[in-house]
């Protein structure tokens, strides 16, 4: 019992020591943790028909061999944007019926309520996406197509 208490005390001390190394710095996440964050967000989203979630959404290593770590939220925003891409694809597909296109567009514009738009997207970058969404709502899908081609590589 004493040994258990001693170990617990040691672990708590170590945790406290680690915390005080630089408490002003918030944590970063490993690729594995970022993938878990991605999966948790993905579980709340339904992709467009024909789409599936990627098996490895976050690389653990950079091309130079160094590890990658990520700011918390990276995985969440990545899942949101993948979901947005899936519904953008549905809107842009010429085989999509008018009714299905309208339904797909309803999903696309919901990106404005997701973590991606609300938190991850830089404020100075929001007018661009606003323009893409507003054009789409007016029936002009050219900006959405351009956005998809630039940022939705699968």
């Amino acid at each position, binding site marked *: 019992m004493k040994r258990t208490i001693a170990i617990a005390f040691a672990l708590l001390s170590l945790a406290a020591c680690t915390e005080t190394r630089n408490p002003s710095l918030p*944590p970063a996440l490993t690729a594995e*943790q970022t993938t878990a964050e991605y999966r948790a967000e993905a579980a709340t989203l339904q992709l467009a028909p024909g789409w599936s979630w990627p098996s490895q959404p976050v690389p653990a290593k950079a091309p130079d061999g160094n590890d990658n770590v990520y700011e918390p939220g*990276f995985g969440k925003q990545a899942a949101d944007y993948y979901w947005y891409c899936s519904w953008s694809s549905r809107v842009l597909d010429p085989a999509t019926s008018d009714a299905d296109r309208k339904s797909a567009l309803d999903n696309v514009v919901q990106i404005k309520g997701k973590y*991606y738009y609300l938190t991850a997207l830089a404020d*100075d970058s929001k007018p*661009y996406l606003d323009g893409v969404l507003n054009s789409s709502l007016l029936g002009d899908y*050219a900006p959405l197509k351009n956005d998809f081609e630039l940022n939705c590589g699968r």
Partner: protein
Amino acid sequence: MRILGKAQFIALAAAAVVVFAGAPALAASNHAISGTVYSPCSGNGPWFTSSNARTKAGTGAVKAEFVDVNPGGLSFRLLGRSNQQFGVTQQWGPNETGIWRTFTSSMNNGTTFFNSFRQTSTSCGYHDYNFTGTEFY
């Protein structure tokens, strides 16, 4: 840009509404950036990738300069949605303030990218990991 540290490792070293027939094109401009690199005290000093998504305004160059560079030097790159790198990695030495370096001269209007950076030096023992500067995109 909020930049961070490394809690999972013991050694932290640490509307405008515009509607056009084509893609909405806004003018490129300067944006303040700041961040914290990791020390290589644990592992090789990983790349830290920000969760802030940034969108290129107008087709053209993306570049940066710094008024404060972390003493261990700064390596900086731009990543896309598919983890592809745009252009080249640029490096700033600790005294290289006020020097613009270009990552890419031809990023398309509307391209989303993420800033990613690390301490250039592989030495362990620096006690300042912060940088502050300006990014043009």
